[in-house]
Protein backbone atom coordinates (compact mmCIF):
# COMPACT_ATOMS: atom_id res chain seq x y z
CA UNK A 1 0.00 0.00 0.00
CA UNK A 2 2.80 2.32 0.91
CA UNK A 3 4.48 1.80 -2.38
CA UNK A 4 1.26 2.34 -4.19
CA UNK A 5 0.63 5.63 -2.45
CA UNK A 6 4.11 6.82 -3.02
CA UNK A 7 3.93 6.04 -6.71
CA UNK A 8 0.60 7.67 -7.07
CA UNK A 9 1.75 10.78 -5.30
CA UNK A 10 4.83 10.73 -7.48
CA UNK A 11 2.75 10.81 -10.58
CA UNK A 12 0.31 13.41 -9.40
CA UNK A 13 2.39 15.50 -7.10
CA UNK A 14 5.83 14.93 -8.49
CA UNK A 15 5.33 15.21 -12.19
CA UNK A 16 2.35 17.45 -12.20
CA UNK A 17 3.92 19.79 -9.71
CA UNK A 18 7.48 20.06 -10.79
CA UNK A 19 7.61 19.29 -14.45
CA UNK A 20 4.25 19.85 -15.98
CA UNK A 21 3.16 23.01 -14.28
CA UNK A 22 4.08 25.11 -17.26
CA UNK A 23 2.52 22.62 -19.64
CA UNK A 24 -0.94 22.74 -18.21
CA UNK A 25 -1.34 26.14 -19.72
CA UNK A 26 -0.49 24.74 -23.11
CA UNK A 27 -3.59 24.35 -25.27
CA UNK A 28 -2.06 21.50 -27.21
CA UNK A 29 -1.86 19.46 -24.07
CA UNK A 30 -5.57 19.56 -23.43
CA UNK A 31 -6.20 18.43 -27.01
CA UNK A 32 -4.53 15.16 -26.08
CA UNK A 33 -7.52 14.36 -23.88
CA UNK A 34 -9.58 13.51 -26.92
CA UNK A 35 -7.51 10.60 -28.14
CA UNK A 36 -9.73 7.53 -27.92
CA UNK A 37 -7.12 4.99 -28.88
CA UNK A 38 -6.59 3.38 -32.27
CA UNK A 39 -9.97 2.46 -33.80
CA UNK A 40 -8.83 -1.00 -34.86
CA UNK A 41 -6.90 -1.83 -31.73
CA UNK A 42 -7.43 -5.38 -30.55
CA UNK A 43 -8.42 -6.21 -27.01
CA UNK A 44 -9.05 -9.01 -24.57
CA UNK A 45 -11.80 -9.45 -22.01
CA UNK A 46 -10.66 -11.40 -18.96
CA UNK A 47 -13.75 -12.94 -17.40
CA UNK A 48 -13.05 -13.86 -13.79
CA UNK A 49 -16.22 -15.96 -13.56
CA UNK A 50 -14.62 -18.33 -16.07
CA UNK A 51 -11.00 -18.54 -14.92
CA UNK A 52 -10.25 -21.76 -13.03
CA UNK A 53 -6.63 -21.03 -12.18
CA UNK A 54 -5.13 -23.75 -14.35
CA UNK A 55 -2.08 -21.62 -15.28
CA UNK A 56 -2.22 -22.79 -18.90
CA UNK A 57 -1.87 -19.14 -19.92
CA UNK A 58 1.32 -18.76 -17.91
CA UNK A 59 2.81 -21.89 -19.44
CA UNK A 60 1.90 -20.79 -22.96
CA UNK A 61 3.42 -17.34 -22.38
CA UNK A 62 6.62 -18.83 -21.05
CA UNK A 63 7.12 -20.88 -24.21
CA UNK A 64 5.94 -18.29 -26.71
CA UNK A 65 8.18 -15.57 -25.30
CA UNK A 66 11.07 -17.97 -24.64
CA UNK A 67 11.21 -16.95 -21.01
CA UNK A 68 13.53 -18.76 -18.58
CA UNK A 69 12.64 -22.08 -17.02
CA UNK A 70 10.31 -21.42 -14.10
CA UNK A 71 11.28 -22.31 -10.52
CA UNK A 72 8.35 -24.67 -10.27
CA UNK A 73 6.19 -26.49 -12.84
CA UNK A 74 3.18 -24.67 -14.22
CA UNK A 75 0.91 -27.30 -12.75
CA UNK A 76 2.17 -26.58 -9.24
CA UNK A 77 -0.65 -24.67 -7.58
CA UNK A 78 1.20 -23.93 -4.36
CA UNK A 79 2.35 -20.71 -6.08
CA UNK A 80 -1.05 -19.29 -5.26
CA UNK A 81 -0.01 -19.23 -1.60
CA UNK A 82 3.18 -17.32 -2.35
CA UNK A 83 3.52 -13.98 -0.59
CA UNK A 84 6.35 -11.51 -0.59
CA UNK A 85 6.15 -8.34 1.47
CA UNK A 86 2.43 -8.83 1.78
CA UNK A 87 2.02 -9.11 -1.97
CA UNK A 88 0.94 -11.94 -4.20
CA UNK A 89 3.02 -12.88 -7.21
CA UNK A 90 3.73 -10.11 -9.66
CA UNK A 91 4.90 -9.96 -13.25
CA UNK A 92 8.66 -9.84 -13.60
CA UNK A 93 11.40 -10.40 -16.13
CA UNK A 94 10.73 -14.14 -16.23
CA UNK A 95 6.93 -13.99 -16.00
CA UNK A 96 5.08 -11.65 -18.33
CA UNK A 97 1.83 -12.90 -16.85
CA UNK A 98 0.88 -14.43 -13.52
CA UNK A 99 -2.34 -15.89 -12.15
CA UNK A 100 -3.20 -15.27 -8.52
CA UNK A 101 -5.88 -16.69 -6.26
CA UNK A 102 -8.28 -14.49 -4.32
CA UNK A 103 -10.38 -15.93 -1.54
CA UNK A 104 -13.42 -13.72 -1.56
CA UNK A 105 -15.76 -14.19 1.40
CA UNK A 106 -18.91 -13.49 -0.62
CA UNK A 107 -18.26 -16.47 -2.89
CA UNK A 108 -17.99 -20.10 -1.92
CA UNK A 109 -15.02 -20.77 -4.16
CA UNK A 110 -11.80 -18.88 -4.78
CA UNK A 111 -11.42 -16.56 -7.75
CA UNK A 112 -8.38 -16.48 -9.97
CA UNK A 113 -7.09 -13.44 -11.75
CA UNK A 114 -4.49 -13.32 -14.50
CA UNK A 115 -2.50 -10.13 -14.81
CA UNK A 116 -0.23 -8.83 -17.55
CA UNK A 117 0.40 -5.52 -19.29
CA UNK A 118 -2.96 -3.85 -19.87
CA UNK A 119 -1.83 -2.32 -23.17
CA UNK A 120 -3.25 1.07 -22.28
CA UNK A 121 -4.77 3.26 -24.99
CA UNK A 122 -2.45 6.00 -23.82
CA UNK A 123 0.29 4.17 -21.98
CA UNK A 124 2.04 6.02 -19.19
CA UNK A 125 5.15 3.94 -19.81
CA UNK A 126 5.17 5.44 -23.28
CA UNK A 127 4.37 9.02 -22.37
CA UNK A 128 6.81 9.02 -19.49
CA UNK A 129 9.68 7.74 -21.63
CA UNK A 130 11.75 10.62 -22.94
CA UNK A 131 13.67 8.59 -25.50
CA UNK A 132 10.49 7.11 -27.02
CA UNK A 133 11.43 3.52 -26.36
CA UNK A 134 7.77 2.49 -26.34
CA UNK A 135 5.31 2.29 -29.22
CA UNK A 136 1.57 1.77 -29.17
CA UNK A 137 0.91 -0.11 -32.39
CA UNK A 138 -2.34 0.33 -34.35
CA UNK A 139 -3.14 -3.29 -33.40
CA UNK A 140 -3.18 -2.20 -29.77
CA UNK A 141 0.08 -3.65 -28.48
CA UNK A 142 2.46 -1.58 -26.39
CA UNK A 143 5.90 -2.69 -27.46
CA UNK A 144 9.38 -1.67 -26.46
CA UNK A 145 12.62 -0.98 -28.28
CA UNK A 146 15.65 -1.98 -26.17
CA UNK A 147 18.02 -0.26 -28.60
CA UNK A 148 17.02 3.25 -27.58
CA UNK A 149 16.26 2.61 -23.90
CA UNK A 150 18.74 4.37 -21.63
CA UNK A 151 17.73 2.37 -18.55
CA UNK A 152 16.37 5.28 -16.52
CA UNK A 153 13.51 3.17 -15.11
CA UNK A 154 10.97 5.96 -15.34
CA UNK A 155 8.45 3.66 -17.00
CA UNK A 156 8.68 1.21 -14.11
CA UNK A 157 7.61 3.93 -11.76
CA UNK A 158 5.07 5.50 -14.07
CA UNK A 159 2.99 2.42 -14.98
CA UNK A 160 -0.22 2.50 -12.93
CA UNK A 161 -0.33 -1.32 -12.93
CA UNK A 162 3.31 -1.97 -11.91
CA UNK A 163 3.94 -4.05 -15.01
CA UNK A 164 7.33 -3.35 -16.59
CA UNK A 165 10.38 -4.82 -14.91
CA UNK A 166 14.05 -4.76 -15.72
CA UNK A 167 16.29 -7.59 -16.65
CA UNK A 168 19.62 -7.00 -14.99
CA UNK A 169 21.53 -9.95 -16.40
CA UNK A 170 23.69 -7.49 -18.28
CA UNK A 171 24.64 -4.35 -16.42
CA UNK A 172 25.45 -2.56 -19.64
CA UNK A 173 22.28 -3.24 -21.55
CA UNK A 174 19.35 -3.05 -19.20
CA UNK A 175 16.21 -4.27 -20.82
CA UNK A 176 12.58 -3.73 -19.92
CA UNK A 177 10.68 -6.99 -19.79
CA UNK A 178 6.92 -7.01 -20.10
CA UNK A 179 4.06 -8.55 -22.02
CA UNK A 180 4.01 -7.33 -25.63
CA UNK A 181 0.63 -8.86 -26.58
CA UNK A 182 2.67 -11.43 -28.60
CA UNK A 183 3.03 -8.63 -31.12
CA UNK A 184 5.93 -9.97 -33.18
CA UNK A 185 4.89 -13.56 -33.39
CA UNK A 186 1.11 -13.33 -33.42
CA UNK A 187 -0.83 -10.08 -33.10
CA UNK A 188 0.85 -8.51 -36.12
CA UNK A 189 -0.30 -11.50 -38.15
CA UNK A 190 -3.88 -11.25 -36.97
CA UNK A 191 -3.54 -14.07 -34.44
CA UNK A 192 -4.58 -13.99 -30.78
CA UNK A 193 -1.83 -14.04 -28.14
CA UNK A 194 -0.59 -17.42 -26.93
CA UNK A 195 -2.30 -17.19 -23.54
CA UNK A 196 -5.68 -16.58 -25.15
CA UNK A 197 -5.26 -19.55 -27.44
CA UNK A 198 -4.23 -21.77 -24.52
CA UNK A 199 -7.05 -20.87 -22.15
CA UNK A 200 -9.39 -23.87 -21.94
CA UNK A 201 -12.19 -21.81 -20.44
CA UNK A 202 -12.03 -18.90 -22.86
CA UNK A 203 -11.68 -16.75 -19.77
CA UNK A 204 -9.71 -14.67 -22.23
CA UNK A 205 -11.78 -13.53 -25.19
CA UNK A 206 -10.02 -11.81 -28.05
CA UNK A 207 -11.23 -9.40 -30.72
CA UNK A 208 -11.33 -5.77 -31.67
CA UNK A 209 -11.42 -3.69 -28.50
CA UNK A 210 -14.68 -2.06 -29.54
CA UNK A 211 -16.23 -5.49 -30.11
CA UNK A 212 -14.87 -6.77 -26.82
CA UNK A 213 -16.72 -3.94 -25.10
CA UNK A 214 -19.92 -5.09 -26.83
CA UNK A 215 -19.27 -8.68 -25.79
CA UNK A 216 -18.59 -7.64 -22.20
CA UNK A 217 -21.73 -5.49 -22.07
CA UNK A 218 -23.77 -8.34 -23.48
CA UNK A 219 -22.51 -10.71 -20.79
CA UNK A 220 -23.43 -8.22 -18.09
CA UNK A 221 -26.84 -7.54 -19.62
CA UNK A 222 -27.81 -11.14 -20.40
CA UNK A 223 -26.83 -12.67 -17.08
CA UNK A 224 -28.05 -10.25 -14.41
CA UNK A 225 -26.43 -10.76 -11.04
CA UNK A 226 -23.48 -12.65 -12.42
CA UNK A 227 -21.20 -9.65 -12.84
CA UNK A 228 -20.47 -6.32 -11.23
CA UNK A 229 -21.92 -3.81 -13.69
CA UNK A 230 -18.57 -2.43 -14.70
CA UNK A 231 -15.92 -3.24 -17.28
CA UNK A 232 -12.57 -2.63 -15.65
CA UNK A 233 -10.34 -1.03 -18.26
CA UNK A 234 -13.07 0.53 -20.35
CA UNK A 235 -12.13 3.89 -18.88
CA UNK A 236 -9.49 3.23 -16.20
CA UNK A 237 -6.25 5.07 -16.92
CA UNK A 238 -7.76 6.36 -20.14
CA UNK A 239 -8.91 2.93 -21.30
CA UNK A 240 -6.93 -0.27 -21.80
CA UNK A 241 -6.85 -3.03 -24.40
CA UNK A 242 -7.07 -5.70 -21.71
CA UNK A 243 -10.28 -5.42 -19.72
CA UNK A 244 -11.84 -7.36 -16.86
CA UNK A 245 -15.26 -8.66 -15.87
CA UNK A 246 -15.71 -9.76 -12.28
CA UNK A 247 -18.42 -11.21 -10.06
CA UNK A 248 -17.10 -9.19 -7.09
CA UNK A 249 -15.90 -5.59 -6.67
CA UNK A 250 -12.61 -5.22 -8.50
CA UNK A 251 -10.72 -4.21 -5.37
CA UNK A 252 -11.33 -7.70 -3.98
CA UNK A 253 -9.39 -9.27 -6.82
CA UNK A 254 -6.44 -6.97 -6.42
CA UNK A 255 -7.23 -4.36 -9.04
CA UNK A 256 -6.72 -0.69 -8.22
CA UNK A 257 -10.12 0.97 -8.14
CA UNK A 258 -8.75 4.46 -7.51
CA UNK A 259 -7.30 4.98 -10.95
CA UNK A 260 -8.48 8.11 -12.73
CA UNK A 261 -10.39 7.79 -15.97
CA UNK A 262 -7.90 9.95 -17.79
CA UNK A 263 -4.54 8.75 -18.95
CA UNK A 264 -2.19 9.20 -16.04
CA UNK A 265 0.24 11.43 -17.87
CA UNK A 266 -2.19 13.02 -20.27
CA UNK A 267 -1.05 16.51 -19.57
CA UNK A 268 2.58 15.61 -19.92
CA UNK A 269 2.09 14.02 -23.29
CA UNK A 270 1.68 17.17 -25.35
CA UNK A 271 4.62 18.52 -23.47
CA UNK A 272 6.91 15.60 -24.09
CA UNK A 273 6.18 15.49 -27.79
CA UNK A 274 7.09 19.15 -28.00
CA UNK A 275 10.76 18.48 -28.53
CA UNK A 276 12.37 21.91 -28.15
CA UNK A 277 10.84 22.35 -24.73
CA UNK A 278 12.00 18.93 -23.72
CA UNK A 279 15.49 19.79 -24.77
CA UNK A 280 15.41 23.04 -22.86
CA UNK A 281 14.14 21.37 -19.75
CA UNK A 282 16.13 18.19 -20.16
CA UNK A 283 18.44 18.64 -17.17
CA UNK A 284 15.54 19.54 -14.93
CA UNK A 285 13.51 16.62 -16.22
CA UNK A 286 16.31 14.19 -15.76
CA UNK A 287 17.10 15.37 -12.29
CA UNK A 288 13.43 15.14 -11.44
CA UNK A 289 13.03 11.63 -12.77
CA UNK A 290 16.17 10.50 -11.06
CA UNK A 291 15.05 11.94 -7.76
CA UNK A 292 11.70 10.27 -8.08
CA UNK A 293 13.17 6.94 -9.04
CA UNK A 294 15.47 6.93 -6.07
CA UNK A 295 12.69 8.12 -3.84
CA UNK A 296 10.60 5.19 -4.93
CA UNK A 297 13.49 2.92 -4.05
CA UNK A 298 13.73 4.48 -0.64
CA UNK A 299 10.04 4.06 -0.06
CA UNK A 300 10.18 0.43 -1.11
CA UNK A 301 13.21 -0.06 1.05
CA UNK A 302 11.56 1.33 4.14
CA UNK A 303 8.45 -0.59 3.25
CA UNK A 304 10.46 -3.78 3.11
CA UNK A 305 12.22 -2.93 6.33
CA UNK A 306 8.92 -2.36 8.01
CA UNK A 307 7.82 -5.74 6.76
CA UNK A 308 10.86 -7.45 8.11
CA UNK A 309 10.44 -5.87 11.49
CA UNK A 310 6.78 -6.71 11.59
Amino acid sequence: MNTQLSRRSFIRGGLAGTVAAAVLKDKKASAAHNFEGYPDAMGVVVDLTRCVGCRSCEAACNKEQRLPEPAEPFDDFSVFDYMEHGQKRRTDEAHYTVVNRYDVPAIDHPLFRKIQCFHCNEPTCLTSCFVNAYTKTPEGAVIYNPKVCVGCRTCLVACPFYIPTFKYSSAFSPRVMKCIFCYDTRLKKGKPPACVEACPQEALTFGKRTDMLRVARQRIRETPGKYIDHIYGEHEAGGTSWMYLSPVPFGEVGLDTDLPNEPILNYVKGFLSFVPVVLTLWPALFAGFHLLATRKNRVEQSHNDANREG
Partner: protein
Amino acid sequence: MRFERKLLPAVRAMGLGLLLLIPAGGLAMDVDDAPAAVVIDFLQNLYEPVHFDHTMHLDMATCSHCHHHTIGTGPANPLCARCHAGAGEGDIVACSDCHDAQPFTVENLKKTAEPKLFHIDKPGLMAAFHINCRGCHEEAGGPTGCQDCHKMTEAGEKRFNTGKYAPSGYKAVPKHHDAEKKHE
Protein backbone atom coordinates in the same frame (compact mmCIF):
# COMPACT_ATOMS: atom_id res chain seq x y z
CA MET B 1 -32.88 -40.48 -46.14
CA ARG B 2 -33.00 -39.08 -42.67
CA PHE B 3 -30.18 -41.20 -41.51
CA GLU B 4 -27.91 -39.73 -44.13
CA ARG B 5 -29.00 -36.26 -43.19
CA LYS B 6 -27.94 -36.96 -39.64
CA LEU B 7 -24.76 -38.58 -40.68
CA LEU B 8 -23.46 -35.68 -42.73
CA PRO B 9 -22.64 -33.36 -39.86
CA ALA B 10 -21.02 -36.26 -38.10
CA VAL B 11 -18.82 -36.89 -41.09
CA ARG B 12 -17.94 -33.22 -41.20
CA ALA B 13 -17.14 -33.39 -37.52
CA MET B 14 -14.77 -36.23 -38.17
CA GLY B 15 -12.96 -33.97 -40.55
CA LEU B 16 -12.32 -31.72 -37.59
CA GLY B 17 -11.10 -34.71 -35.68
CA LEU B 18 -14.19 -35.21 -33.57
CA LEU B 19 -15.13 -38.84 -34.00
CA LEU B 20 -18.75 -39.64 -33.58
CA LEU B 21 -19.42 -43.29 -33.26
CA ILE B 22 -22.90 -43.50 -34.71
CA PRO B 23 -24.79 -46.63 -33.80
CA ALA B 24 -26.17 -48.33 -36.88
CA GLY B 25 -29.88 -48.33 -37.56
CA GLY B 26 -31.29 -45.42 -35.53
CA LEU B 27 -33.53 -43.14 -37.57
CA ALA B 28 -35.27 -40.77 -35.19
CA MET B 29 -33.48 -38.25 -33.01
CA ASP B 30 -34.16 -39.75 -29.65
CA VAL B 31 -32.07 -41.20 -26.91
CA ASP B 32 -31.50 -44.43 -28.80
CA ASP B 33 -30.11 -42.37 -31.61
CA ALA B 34 -27.27 -41.05 -29.50
CA PRO B 35 -23.77 -42.37 -29.96
CA ALA B 36 -22.59 -44.54 -27.10
CA ALA B 37 -19.20 -42.91 -26.93
CA VAL B 38 -17.46 -39.93 -28.41
CA VAL B 39 -13.74 -39.56 -28.70
CA ILE B 40 -12.78 -35.92 -28.43
CA ASP B 41 -9.35 -35.71 -29.92
CA PHE B 42 -9.14 -32.56 -31.98
CA LEU B 43 -7.64 -30.25 -29.35
CA GLN B 44 -3.98 -29.56 -28.88
CA ASN B 45 -1.46 -32.26 -28.44
CA LEU B 46 -0.93 -31.33 -24.81
CA TYR B 47 -3.49 -33.80 -23.52
CA GLU B 48 -4.64 -37.19 -24.64
CA PRO B 49 -8.08 -37.59 -26.18
CA VAL B 50 -11.12 -37.63 -23.93
CA HIS B 51 -13.18 -40.79 -24.12
CA PHE B 52 -16.55 -39.32 -23.48
CA ASP B 53 -19.12 -41.84 -22.27
CA HIS B 54 -22.17 -40.39 -23.94
CA THR B 55 -24.56 -43.06 -22.71
CA MET B 56 -23.53 -42.59 -19.11
CA HIS B 57 -24.15 -38.85 -19.37
CA LEU B 58 -27.66 -39.36 -20.72
CA ASP B 59 -28.76 -40.11 -17.16
CA MET B 60 -27.05 -37.07 -15.74
CA ALA B 61 -28.31 -34.27 -17.91
CA THR B 62 -31.03 -33.57 -20.42
CA CYS B 63 -29.96 -33.59 -24.07
CA SER B 64 -30.56 -29.86 -24.38
CA HIS B 65 -28.09 -29.08 -21.61
CA CYS B 66 -25.39 -29.74 -24.16
CA HIS B 67 -27.19 -29.66 -27.51
CA HIS B 68 -29.12 -26.47 -26.75
CA HIS B 69 -31.87 -25.98 -29.34
CA THR B 70 -30.66 -28.37 -32.02
CA ILE B 71 -32.36 -31.65 -31.21
CA GLY B 72 -35.99 -30.66 -31.09
CA THR B 73 -36.53 -30.94 -27.34
CA GLY B 74 -36.56 -27.19 -26.70
CA PRO B 75 -33.61 -25.41 -25.11
CA ALA B 76 -32.90 -25.84 -21.39
CA ASN B 77 -31.61 -22.29 -21.08
CA PRO B 78 -34.40 -19.68 -20.94
CA LEU B 79 -32.09 -17.21 -22.70
CA CYS B 80 -32.00 -19.45 -25.76
CA ALA B 81 -35.73 -20.03 -25.55
CA ARG B 82 -36.40 -16.38 -26.35
CA CYS B 83 -35.66 -17.14 -29.98
CA HIS B 84 -35.40 -20.92 -30.23
CA ALA B 85 -38.33 -22.07 -28.12
CA GLY B 86 -40.06 -23.84 -30.99
CA ALA B 87 -36.93 -24.98 -32.75
CA GLY B 88 -37.30 -28.40 -34.29
CA GLU B 89 -34.68 -30.98 -34.84
CA GLY B 90 -31.75 -29.52 -36.72
CA ASP B 91 -29.19 -30.90 -39.09
CA ILE B 92 -26.55 -29.71 -36.75
CA VAL B 93 -25.92 -31.87 -33.73
CA ALA B 94 -22.19 -32.22 -33.21
CA CYS B 95 -20.57 -29.62 -30.95
CA SER B 96 -18.02 -28.77 -33.61
CA ASP B 97 -20.74 -27.85 -36.10
CA CYS B 98 -21.34 -24.61 -34.22
CA HIS B 99 -18.35 -24.17 -31.94
CA ASP B 100 -15.24 -23.42 -33.91
CA ALA B 101 -11.95 -25.06 -33.02
CA GLN B 102 -10.28 -21.73 -33.90
CA PRO B 103 -12.62 -19.09 -32.51
CA PHE B 104 -10.37 -16.07 -33.05
CA THR B 105 -9.49 -16.29 -36.72
CA VAL B 106 -9.82 -13.09 -38.73
CA GLU B 107 -12.86 -14.68 -40.39
CA ASN B 108 -14.55 -15.47 -37.07
CA LEU B 109 -13.78 -12.05 -35.65
CA LYS B 110 -15.86 -10.59 -38.48
CA LYS B 111 -18.86 -12.33 -36.91
CA THR B 112 -17.99 -10.83 -33.54
CA ALA B 113 -18.11 -7.44 -35.23
CA GLU B 114 -21.53 -8.03 -36.84
CA PRO B 115 -23.69 -5.24 -35.41
CA LYS B 116 -27.01 -7.09 -35.71
CA LEU B 117 -25.89 -10.55 -34.70
CA PHE B 118 -26.87 -11.76 -31.23
CA HIS B 119 -24.34 -14.62 -31.17
CA ILE B 120 -21.25 -12.42 -31.08
CA ASP B 121 -19.94 -14.29 -28.07
CA LYS B 122 -20.11 -17.96 -28.99
CA PRO B 123 -17.36 -19.89 -27.20
CA GLY B 124 -14.87 -21.82 -29.29
CA LEU B 125 -14.95 -25.61 -29.21
CA MET B 126 -12.42 -26.05 -26.41
CA ALA B 127 -14.19 -23.45 -24.27
CA ALA B 128 -17.62 -24.89 -25.06
CA PHE B 129 -16.49 -28.22 -23.66
CA HIS B 130 -14.78 -26.81 -20.61
CA ILE B 131 -17.40 -24.24 -19.69
CA ASN B 132 -20.26 -26.69 -20.14
CA CYS B 133 -18.71 -29.96 -18.96
CA ARG B 134 -16.55 -28.59 -16.20
CA GLY B 135 -19.23 -26.17 -15.07
CA CYS B 136 -21.69 -29.01 -14.66
CA HIS B 137 -19.09 -31.23 -13.00
CA GLU B 138 -18.50 -28.53 -10.46
CA GLU B 139 -22.18 -28.25 -9.64
CA ALA B 140 -22.82 -31.97 -9.70
CA GLY B 141 -19.61 -33.01 -7.99
CA GLY B 142 -18.03 -34.61 -11.05
CA PRO B 143 -14.28 -34.64 -11.61
CA THR B 144 -12.82 -31.18 -12.28
CA GLY B 145 -9.05 -31.67 -12.28
CA CYS B 146 -7.42 -31.29 -15.69
CA GLN B 147 -6.04 -34.81 -15.70
CA ASP B 148 -9.22 -36.35 -14.39
CA CYS B 149 -10.55 -36.19 -17.95
CA HIS B 150 -7.44 -36.12 -20.10
CA LYS B 151 -3.96 -37.28 -19.19
CA MET B 152 -1.15 -34.96 -20.09
CA THR B 153 1.05 -36.00 -22.99
CA GLU B 154 4.79 -35.58 -23.22
CA ALA B 155 4.24 -32.37 -25.18
CA GLY B 156 2.06 -31.22 -22.30
CA GLU B 157 4.77 -32.02 -19.76
CA LYS B 158 7.16 -29.95 -21.81
CA ARG B 159 4.73 -27.05 -22.03
CA PHE B 160 4.03 -27.13 -18.29
CA ASN B 161 7.62 -27.90 -17.21
CA THR B 162 6.38 -30.87 -15.30
CA GLY B 163 6.94 -34.63 -15.04
CA LYS B 164 10.22 -35.46 -16.69
CA TYR B 165 10.57 -31.83 -17.77
CA ALA B 166 10.29 -30.49 -14.21
CA PRO B 167 12.79 -27.73 -13.42
CA SER B 168 16.10 -29.04 -12.16
CA GLY B 169 16.27 -28.90 -8.39
CA TYR B 170 12.52 -28.71 -8.09
CA LYS B 171 11.08 -30.63 -5.18
CA ALA B 172 7.39 -31.19 -5.48
CA VAL B 173 5.44 -29.87 -2.55
CA PRO B 174 2.89 -32.38 -1.41
CA LYS B 175 -0.44 -31.24 -2.73
CA HIS B 176 -2.93 -31.07 0.09
CA HIS B 177 -5.73 -30.10 -2.13
CA ASP B 178 -6.49 -30.22 -5.79
CA ALA B 179 -5.98 -26.62 -6.74
CA GLU B 180 -7.50 -27.30 -10.11
CA LYS B 181 -10.81 -27.40 -8.35
CA LYS B 182 -12.61 -24.26 -7.49
CA HIS B 183 -14.33 -26.05 -4.66
CA GLU B 184 -12.05 -27.50 -2.12
